[in-house]
């Protein structure tokens, strides 16, 4: 039982580090990008884009 718990915890930690390595590349690019983070998060902007694309 203890071994299983250690195993699960170990996999979880390993997974976190794997994700961190993956995010390192994308986050550095995203943070340096000339389009601000808001543009990716602002749902109003996305709705506006949607309206425009349907009007064009």
């Amino acid at each position, binding site marked *: 039982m203890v071994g299983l718990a250690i195993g699960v915890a170990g996999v979880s930690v390993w997974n976190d580090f794997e994700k961190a390595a993956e995010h390192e590349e994308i986050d550095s690019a995203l943070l340096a990008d000339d*389009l601000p983070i808001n543009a990716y998060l602002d749902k109003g902007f996305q709705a506006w884009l949607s309206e425009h*694309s349907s009007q064009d």
Partner: protein
Amino acid sequence: MAFRALFAGLILTFSLLSLPQAAVPELRQPAWADLSLEQKQILSPLSRDWDKMEAFRKKKWLGIAKRYPTMKPQEQARVQRRMQDWVSLTPEQRTRARTQYKSLKTAPIEHKEAIRKKWDLYKELPDEEKKRLAEKAASKKTSLKPGTAKPLGLAPKLPATAPLLLPAAAPAAESAPPPVISPAVESTPPPAQADTSASTESTESPAQSVTATPAASAPASGQQ
């Protein structure tokens, strides 16, 4: 009997203490005081949060700090300006930003340029209009079943093979609160805003800032 149990307990405790370091040496990431001067300068916006961060997040930021010298000065300035905002976002918001960024990254260059121009135009919209759009987005989200959301962006203009821009939020982001665009942030910007710092860039405006609400006040949760 008691002696054997105690002995087994001691062995188990010793194993638990030594196992993570042996199996995952990266678990030991430096404290703020142990960073080099250069790392401290680059990561200075994170100085307050650093020692509370999980090891894997520290590792990611150290990796970004390693890439930092290879960036252009303008990019370096953006990275530093956005660091604090980034850690203040909810895990769902970060996931969504990454998903959208990946989508845009694979789009043709002219498509990216179009999105940037649209963003500049969008920023000029009156606050009432932005509020209406945010409400529209929120109501659309609630009226659509998961997985049926129509891809957003400039998709109709693209060739069929082109990646869609700014698609609907990733499934993981569905529970995230919609970003709130508040004109009030100009006067009293809360710490949890994205890109609220003084900016001379045409692409960023404090008035557009996303207030990373509820979970944003708990930056220790989730991936950063």
